[in-house]
């Protein structure tokens, strides 16, 4: 028969433990990842004592954690999403701040540049206005370079942080694997009693991990936790860690991608879309690279348009103008995994058809195909890829040398390097081509009323552009060119030759003559400068529908909208995360008032048990007195 002493002693021990559990809860009220603990008490079974049976006190069956796997999973997944948005937001906001309201000064510099051409048009022979124009041209190219350099710095930052994140993920994974080992052992030793502190630690690590990279978990029957990233790529299985690794992008060795030790260099970056790491990859793919490419597209179009106009006019020395800007040709990089020897040389041939996308040229089953990076859309190619008949698509000409093996790929980035390499190459202000290339003249001896219009340049590359030409009327309705041929005259219609075009209108008399010749010597001519200042409103991008200034505005609005969108998503996710946090705390958090009440409860119980012991003792004394008495 269990006596009152035995029963009271089990109670005293149990309540002492309970007080310890409560104190431990209070002590860990602010410990991150700590799940409050509860003592589980059971009445000890009675020992057989005839017909009546009395229990034998109280037993502590377990000290268990207040824990809900569903709540923890929800919190981890919301933390992953928030981590992704936080790191993405960091970059979209940096781009937004970098762009300000002028795309890093590009918009202002562009206005300055075209206004300076107007000033030169007002005063074509003034060295001062030409020098000022050259300064504006340089600030314009510098604004592109600076903005692009800052965007590239963001990419470098992304690379560094990918490396840091992967290191941290591996450290955490290793710790989880070690804890798995200890938990399995502890569970075995304690006969199934949960090792609460180890579980708390492991949960904290998984929570930290989920902020770095989205994870999914599963628990084995022995208590070990398996952790997976991306599309089920194992990170921790039981006590084994499969570390994540960083590998250089096969097309761009300066760009880090994420792989896994088990994957032999295969890249899993694409499937990582949660946590800080997911945010970094998203920032690079959706914010930074597109901004660099779009800026490059604008730079390419600007450089192309400005150089073409320079080449179509005469400089102060009476020569056709040379290029004002230079820009690197599009990058075409063969994958480091290619087994063939093929290399591509890519040039921009039509800035209107050019896009800001990257393209993948792949060789499969004996044929080349071009697909757009991002959505994988197929882009039709014309030509054969030879120097004589290059592939032509999206404003690019692609010439291949060497031989491709099946499965080889070449990444073409038409505009990625453009803004960074955008340079002013003209240094002498007299080399700015403000004058039109050709001039038309009416002979002083003409007696007819016909007049010749201003000669304009159609094709500045024509080698005979500046060769003098005379148009002589052999009758009021026919004319010869340089004394040869007989052409019918129609008043006001175009006469084109050697890359120029001119109109003669009115009634010519027989013997009247007109000439078109080089404009050299006419330093005061400003026709080309006027064409330059008109260029600002001219559509040169997107098939000739978008002006350069318009494209800069679109880039600004695009980056601003993205930042705004990410900000909104981040605010919403923060609210969701706060709710998940609240749910988790509601289940597992320590409420001090609750613990205070528990303290009182256990203290009272302890005092009552002590009283029972005292009464037991008194009863025993009574018995002793009676026996001795």
């Amino acid at each position, binding site marked *: 028969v269990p006596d009152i002493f035995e029963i009271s002693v089990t109670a005293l021990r149990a309540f002492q433990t309970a007080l310890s559990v409560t104190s431990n809860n209070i002590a860990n009220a602010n410990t991150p990842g700590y799940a409050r603990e509860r003592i589980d008490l059971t009445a000890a079974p009675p020992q057989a004592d005839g017909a009546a049976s009395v229990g034998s006190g109280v037993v502590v069956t377990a000290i268990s954690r207040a824990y809900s796997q569903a709540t923890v999973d929800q919190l981890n997944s919301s933390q992953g999403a928030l981590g992704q948005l936080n790191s993405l937001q960091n970059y979209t906001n940096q781009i937004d701040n970098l762009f300000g309201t002028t795309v890093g000064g590009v918009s202002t510099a562009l*206005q300055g540049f075209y206004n300076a051409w107007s000033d030169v048009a*007002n005063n074509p022979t003034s060295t001062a206005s030409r020098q000022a124009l050259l300064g504006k041209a340089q600030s314009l190219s510098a604004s592109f370079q600076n903005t692009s350099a800052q965007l590239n710095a963001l990419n470098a930052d992304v690379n560094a942080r990918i490396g840091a994140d992967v290191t941290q993920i591996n450290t955490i994974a290793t710790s989880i694997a070690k804890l798995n080992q200890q938990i399995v052992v502890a569970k075995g030793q304690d006969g199934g009693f949960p090792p609460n502190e180890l579980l708390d630690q492991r949960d904290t690590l998984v929570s930290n991990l989920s902020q770095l990279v989205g994870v999914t978990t599963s628990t084995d029957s022995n208590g070990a936790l398996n952790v997976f990233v991306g599309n089920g790529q194992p990170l921790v299985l039981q006590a084994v860690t499969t570390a994540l690794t960083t590998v250089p992008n096969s097309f761009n060795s300066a760009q880090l991608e994420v792989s896994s030790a088990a994957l032999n260099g295969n890249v899993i970056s694409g499937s990582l879309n949660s946590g800080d790491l997911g945010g970094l990859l998203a920032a690079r793919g959706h914010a930074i690279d597109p901004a660099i490419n779009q800026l490059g597209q604008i730079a390419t179009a600007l450089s192309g348009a400005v150089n073409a106009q320079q080449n179509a006019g005469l400089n102060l020395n009476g020569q056709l103008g040379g290029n004002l800007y230079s820009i690197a040709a599009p990058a075409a990089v063969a994958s480091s995994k290619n087994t063939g020897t093929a290399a591509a040389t890519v040039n921009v041939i039509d800035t209107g058809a050019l896009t800001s996308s990257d393209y993948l040229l792949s060789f499969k089953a004996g044929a080349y195909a071009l697909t757009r990076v991002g959505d994988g859309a197929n882009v039709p190619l014309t030509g054969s890829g030879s120097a004589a008949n290059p592939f032509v698509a999206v404003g690019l000409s692609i010439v291949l040398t060497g031989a491709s093996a099946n499965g080889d790929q070449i990444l073409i980035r038409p505009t990625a390097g453009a803004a960074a390499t955008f340079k002013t190459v003209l240094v002498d202000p007299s080399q700015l081509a403000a004058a039109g290339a050709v*001039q*038309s003249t009416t002979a*002083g001896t003409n007696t007819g009323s016909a007049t010749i219009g201003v000669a304009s340049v159609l094709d500045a590359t024509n080698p005979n552009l500046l060769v003098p030409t005379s148009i002589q009327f052999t009758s009021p309705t026919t004319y010869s060119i340089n004394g040869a041929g007989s052409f019918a005259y129609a008043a006001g219609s175009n006469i084109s030759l050697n890359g120029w075009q001119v109109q003669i209108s009115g009634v010519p008399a027989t013997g009247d003559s007109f000439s078109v010749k080089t404009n050299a010597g006419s330093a*005061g001519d400003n026709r080309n400068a006027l064409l330059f200042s008109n260029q600002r409103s001219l559509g040169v991008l997107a098939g000739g529908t978008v002006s350069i200034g318009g494209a800069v505005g679109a880039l600004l609005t695009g980056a*601003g909208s993205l930042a705004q969108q990410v900000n909104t998503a981040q605010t919403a996710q923060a609210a969701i995360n706060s709710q998940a946090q609240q749910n988790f705390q509601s289940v597992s958090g320590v409420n001090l008032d609750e613990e205070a009440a528990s303290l009182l409860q256990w203290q009272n119980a302890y005092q009552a048990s002590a009283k029972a012991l005292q009464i037991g003792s008194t009863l025993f004394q009574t018995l002793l007195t009676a026996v001795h008495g």
Partner: protein
Amino acid sequence: MIMRVTQSLNQSQFLTALNQIESRLSQTQNQITTNLNFTTAAQNPVAAGLVNNYNQTLTQSTQYDTNGNSAHTNLAIEDSALSQVQTQLQSLRDLALQANNGSLSPDARSAIAAQVVQIQSGILAAANTQNGSGEYIFAGNATLSSPFVATASGAAYTGDQGQREVQIAAGQSVATGDNGDSVFNRIKTGNGTFAATAGISNGGTGIFGATSVTDPAGYDGGTYAINFTAPNSYEVRDSNNLLISSGTFSSGQSIGFRGIQLTLNGQPASGDSFSVAPSANQSVFATVQNLVSALQNALGTPAAQALLNNSIGYAINNIDQALNQISNVRSAVGGRLNSITAEQSLSGSQQIQLQQSISNLQSLDYAKAITTLTEQNTTLSASMQAYALTKGLTLFKYL
């Protein structure tokens, strides 16, 4: 189910809320200090794009004003040069009329010739006018060298036929000058349709009076000779020596053929010849030089006097043509000046409109911002107070 709330959650939620309120407060503060609704595109992407576009249009419009001012300066210089030329041509015409008087002494005539030479160089100087940047305004586009160089027969033009334009509004350009070739060289001789001249070796005293075109469709632009077969009879022959018409003549009579008519005074001698040719281009300098040469010829016979009178008459015709030309160019210049002024006043109101639009989008509504600031301030102090009130609430206090 009642949500269990824990002290640490309370704490962290309070801190998060505090951060949010303070960040919004700082944004409002930033708006007020910069007086801008947004400082980056993320705060209002659409407005930022619009403001960017408006700013582009605004700078362009301002540049158009600058262009207009520059054109205005050049045109004003041109107008003043042309007004000088006009004055000189007027004096020249007066001198020619004086010289036409038969009773003038040789000294007086050579004095007039000297004055004409003076005027010649005055017009030349005006034609070589430079603008503030040292460019020759009548050189077309070859503005770096002086366009007119004096020669024995007047002046040679070394400029080109270009005409500089500047843009003063979207799609509207205005010429900032006129080339010297079109202003001073391309002046039609005679009456603008044809020019009548007397043969140098004429022995009679036939002097041209008024010439006119009676039927513009009738004149074919050909060259004709009026030959006097006798002092009182003439015949008109074309360039192929075919007889066109003939008639008898007495002083003051009009001779008409092929849609044109000319009056001849005095008495031509038999064998005298007068020619009619289509008007050609002649520079104002050649006209003046011809007048000087005519004035320097010795007189003494009635025939020589008649030749002088004919030359002066021809010169006066040509001077009138030149005056007409200069006056036309001046009205064109005036028209351009007007359109610049009109365009600038238009662009002025456009700029105000644009600034208004930019301000509407970008400038801060102070009343609203201050209200927001006050609200945020209230929220901040209220949440601080709430925190202070609840943080002391613990059961332990009562144990």
